C-alpha cells in the first residue's frame, strides 16, 4: 500500500453537469463547548433528563434578563481568529417569530454587527474559501411531535418540548459562495471541524447535532451571473453534504434545461430517498422584525483581549499538515498526511524522525497500523525509529518490517532489532539471492524467455519462485532488480 501516500484529496477537479457549474456556500452552526448557557448559568450539557438544565432566563419567564457568557465570546473569538477573521465591535438583535420551542418568541442573535467578519479557510489542497462572518446566537429548545406523520408539528396529537438546549451558545459560520464541487464542500466541512476541535471551540459532532450544516446551492453556465439559490437543510453528515449538493445541483440543471425557473426556497434533504424537498418558499418566509436587543450591551473586545486570544491559539491543522508534509516529503493534501494529522499523530511521526527514524516510513506505519491508537501511540517513538532505520538500511524488507511492527504494537513497544533477530529476519546477502535468482531462471526457461521478450507478466512467476525459495524473506525489489540486470546483460 505504499503507493497510497501519493494519493491526494485534491478537490479542484471541476464539477460539471451538462455544461453547468455549481456554486456552493455553507452556513455551519456549531454548539460552543461552554460550561453554561449563552445568557444564563444553567449547564450547557447534552443528554440530560429533559427540562433539568433550565432557569427563568432559559424559559423566557417574565422579568428575566439575559447576561452574556464571557466564555462564549472568547470561544467565538478563538474560532474567528483561527479562520483569519477580524474581531470587531458587535451587537445582539432580536429575531422575532413564534414557535413553541422558542421560549421568548424571539431568538437573540447577532445580526448586522457580528463579532467576526472577513476571514478565510484554506482547504488541504490550497483552495481558499472565504468566510463572510461568524456570529453568536442562542439555540432553541427541542420539540418532539407525538402522533401524526413524519414527526412534523402539523397533524400531530401533541408536542413535547425539552428546553435543555434552549439558550445553548451557537456560532454560525457563513462562508462565501466560493465552492464549486461537492468535494470542496466536504473538505470545507472537514477542515472547519478540525479547526473547531483544535481550538477547543466545539466538539463539532454532526451526528449529535453539535455541528449542523445548511448548504446554499445554485448552478450557472461558466462565466454567467449567479443563479437563484436554494438552501438545503437537514444535512446530518459530511457524506450527506456531498450527496445533497450533488442531487440539488443536478435537479436545478434539470429544471433549467426543461425551461423551468428555479424558485428561491428552503429545501429539506431526505436521507432515505436521496432527494431534496420543498420546505418553504421565499414568499412564505417570516418577517423577523430584527431590532437591537435592548437587554444587552455592545460587545467590544479590547485589542489586548483579542491579542491574548490570538496568541493562545494552538498550531492549526493546516500548519501541522505542512510541517508533516515537509518532514516526510509528501504533499500537504496526501491522504496519509490528512489521516495522520486528523488523528493528532503528526507530532508522533515527527518524534520518530527526531529519534533518528525515517519520517516517510514512520508516516506509512502510523497511518496503517495506528488507527486505533490515540495522539500518543503506545509504541515508543525510539522503537519505531529503529524499525524504520533498519528498513531504509536494507536490513528489513517492507513485509518483515510490518511483522516486526505488529509485535511492537502488540507488546506496546520493545526492541525492534531483537524482535527481527528472533524472527530470523536477517538481511539476505547478495550472493545468496543471486544464486536463488539463477536457480529460478534455470527452473523456468519458458518464463525467462517470455520475460526477456518483454512480457512483464512473466516476471511474476520468477519472483514468486525466489520468494518461495527464500521462505518470503527476499526483498521483492532486490529480486526484480537482479532479474533486470540478468536480462539486460
Amino acid at each position, binding site marked *: 500500500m505504499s503507493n497510497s501516500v501519493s494519493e491526494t484529496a485534491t478537490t479542484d477537479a471541476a464539477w460539471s453537469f451538462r455544461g453547468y457549474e455549481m456554486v456552493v456556500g455553507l452556513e455551519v452552526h456549531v454548539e460552543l463547548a461552554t460550561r453554561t448557557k449563552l445568557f444564563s448559568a444553567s449547564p450547557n450539557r447534552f443528554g440530560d433528563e429533559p427540562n433539568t438544565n433550565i432557569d427563568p432566563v432559559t424559559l423566557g419567564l417574565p422579568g428575566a434578563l439575559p447576561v452574556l457568557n464571557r466564555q462564549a465570546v472568547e470561544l467565538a473569538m478563538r474560532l474567528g481568529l483561527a479562520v483569519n477573521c477580524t474581531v470587531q465591535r458587535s451587537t445582539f438583535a432580536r429575531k422575532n417569530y413564534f414557535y*413553541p420551542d422558542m*421560549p421568548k418568541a424571539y431568538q437573540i442573535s447577532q445580526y448586522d454587527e457580528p463579532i467576526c467578519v472577513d476571514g478565510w479557510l484554506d482547504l488541504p489542497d490550497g483552495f481558499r474559501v472565504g468566510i463572510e462572518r461568524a456570529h453568536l446566537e442562542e439555540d432553541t429548545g427541542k420539540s418532539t411531535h407525538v402522533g401524526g406523520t413524519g414527526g412534523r408539528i402539523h397533524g400531530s396529537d401533541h408536542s413535547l418540548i425539552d428546553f435543555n438546549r434552549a439558550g445553548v451558545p451557537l456560532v454560525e459560520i457563513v462562508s462565501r459562495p466560493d465552492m464549486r464541487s461537492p468535494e470542496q464542500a466536504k473538505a470545507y466541512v472537514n477542515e472547519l471541524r478540525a479547526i473547531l476541535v483544535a481550538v477547543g471551540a466545539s466538539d463539532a459532532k454532526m451526528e449529535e447535532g453539535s455541528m449542523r450544516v445548511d448548504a446554499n446551492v445554485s448552478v450557472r453556465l461558466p462565466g454567467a451571473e449567479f443563479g437563484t439559490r436554494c438552501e438545503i437543510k437537514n444535512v446530518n453528515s459530511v457524506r450527506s453534504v456531498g450527496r445533497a449538493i450533488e442531487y440539488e445541483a443536478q435537479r436545478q440543471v434539470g429544471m433549467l434545461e426543461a425551461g423551468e425557473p428555479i424558485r428561491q426556497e428552503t429545501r429539506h434533504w431526505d436521507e432515505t430517498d436521496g432527494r431534496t424537498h420543498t420546505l418553504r418558499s421565499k414568499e412564505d418566509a417570516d418577517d423577523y422584525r*430584527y*431590532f437591537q436587543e*435592548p437587554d444587552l450591551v455592545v460587545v467590544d473586545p479590547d485589542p489586548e483581549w483579542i491579542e491574548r486570544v490570538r496568541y493562545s491559539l494552538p498550531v492549526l491543522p493546516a500548519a501541522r499538515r505542512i510541517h508533516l508534509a515537509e518532514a516526510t516529503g509528501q504533499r500537504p493534501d496526501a491522504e496519509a498526511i490528512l489521516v495522520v494529522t486528523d488523528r493528532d499523530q503528526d507530532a508522533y511521526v515527527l518524534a520518530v524522525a527526531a529519534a533518528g527514524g525515517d519520517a516517510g516510513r514512520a508516516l506509512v506505519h502510523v497511518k496503517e497500523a495506528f488507527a486505533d491508537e490515540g495522539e500518543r501511540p503506545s509504541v515508543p517513538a525510539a522503537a519505531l525509529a529503529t524499525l524504520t532505520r533498519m528498513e531504509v538500511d536494507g536490513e528489513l524488507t517492507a513485509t518483515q518490517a510490518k511483522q516486526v511492527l505488529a509485535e511492537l504494537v502488540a507488546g506496546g513497544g520493545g526492541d525492534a532489532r531483537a524482535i527481527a533477530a528472533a524472527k530470523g529476519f536477517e538481511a539476505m546477502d547478495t550472493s545468496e539471492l543471486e544464486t536463488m535468482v539463477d536457480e529460478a531462471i534455470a527452473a523456468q526457461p519458458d518464463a525467462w524467455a517470455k520475460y526477456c521478450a518483454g512480457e512483464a507478466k512473466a516476471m511474476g512467476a520468477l519472483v514468486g519462485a525466489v520468494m518461495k525459495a527464500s521462505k518470503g524473506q527476499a526483498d521483492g525489489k532486490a529480486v526484480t532488480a537482479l532479474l533486470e540486470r540478468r536480462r539486460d546483460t
Partner: protein
Amino acid sequence: MANDSATDIAWNVRNNVVSATDVVEQHLAEIDRRESEIHAFNLVLADEARARAAEIDDAVAVGRDPGPLAGVPIALKDNMCTRGIPTTCSSKILDGWKPPYDATVVTKLREAGAVVIGKTNLDEFAMGSSTENSAFGPTRNPHDTSRVPGGSSGGSAAAVAAGFSALSLGSDTGGSIRQPAALCGVVGVKPTYGAVSRYGLVAFASSLDQIGPFANTVADASLLLEVISGHDPMDSTSIRQGPLDITGQLDFGVIGLRVGRITDLPEGASPDVVERMEQAFEALRDAGAEIVDVEVPAFTYGLTAYYLIAPAEASSNLARYDGVRFGHRVEAPDTNAMYMATRTDGFGAEVKRRIMLGTYALSAGYYDAYYGRALKVRRRIAADFAAAYERADVLLTPASPTVAFHLGDKTSDPMSMYLCDTYTIPSNLTGDPGMSVPFGTGDDGLPVGVQVLAPALQEATMFRTAAELERRAPK
C-alpha cells in the same frame, strides 16, 4: 401613625420605639377602611406582612439591626416578580402565574428590613396613564375618588397617598411614576436608566423601563432609592457602580444652582399648573438659585418617537405570552389557533393596540421610516438635553399638563391619554433621571406636581432641588 414618614418609622423600629407589628397593623387598618373605595391593590399580603413584621420585631429584640427600612410597609407595583406570589401586570394573560423568583429590588427590600404589604394595580403591562386599563378595574384617586390616580403606576401612587403604605415602588417607561405621583400629591422618582436593576421587572419597553420610588417626602424617596439602586450582575444594562448617595445632600440648598427654564417647551399645560410652575421658579430664585433660559428643540418630538420605540419593544417583549409555558391559555385545534385565541382573549385593547403599532413599526419596508427614524430622533433629543445641561444643572417642567382628571374622560381618545406624558417622556428616551414633587394645588384643590430633571447620575442635585421645593411648597 399611618401618616408617619418612612424615615421616622424605620428609626423608631430600629431603636425599639415602636414595633413593626404595630406599624403593619395600623396600615392594614387603613387598607381595611378605604381600599374597597380606592382599589389600589391587586393583592393585599396581610398574613405575609404580619409574619415579616414579627421577624423584624424578633430581630430588634435580640439586638440585631433589620436594616435601613426596618418595619416600613411598602407596596409593589404588580409587574415586579415576587417568588410564589401572583404577579399579574393587571392582565388576564398572566392569570395564575406565580414567579419562581424575586425581582432584585424585592430581594434588596427584604435585606433592608422592609415589609411588603401588597401588590398594586396598574394599567395592563404598564401601558396607560390612568390605571383604567387594568383587567381588574380602575384605581381611584384618594384625593377625589371620581378621578383617576394617573398611571400606569396608579395603584402604587394611590397606596402612598391613601396611607396604605409608607412607601411604594413603581416603574416608569414614559412617565408612569412621575405623572401619578403628581396627580396623587406624592413624591415620585424615575432614576437614571441602569441605576436600579430591572431584573424581575416584567418588561414593557426594555430600553425605557426603570423602577423607582413613591413616597410622602423627598427624604423618604431618597432613602428608598439608596436601598434599591446599585449594580446588579443579573441586569446587563445596570450601571457598574454602588448605590446612589443622596440623602446626605438633601439639605444643601440651591444657592448658586442653575435651574433651567425650557423656553420652547411644548404647550398644553393648564393655567393652574402653569401658575404653580411660575411660583416654583420664584421659590427657587428666592432660595438662591439662578434661573436660566435653555432651549431643547427636539423636546416636542419626544412623544412621537416614544410611541414608535416603546410599542416596538413591547411587541417583542409581549410575544412570550403565547399560552405555551405559563399563564392563560385558550385551547384550540392547533398551535397557531391556540396562540391567536389565547392572545385575543388575554390582552386588553390598549395592549393590543400597542403590539400592533410596534409590529408595524418594525416590519420589513417600514422599519426605516418608523422605528429607524424614531431612534434618530431619540439621539437628537439626547444631544439637545446634553447641550441644555451645559448651561443648567437641573431643569423644571410640569410633571403632568393637568391635575387629576375624571374616570372615563380620556378612555375613548387614546391620543389625549398619550399627551399626559408629554413632559415626562423625554427623560426616558435620554435615560436621565426625573422626579415629581408636590407643589401646592390647582383646580378643585387637587395636587400639582413639579418635575425636576437632571443629567444622568445627578440624582443628588435633583433631590436637593426637590427638597427645596418641598420646603417652599404653597400650603
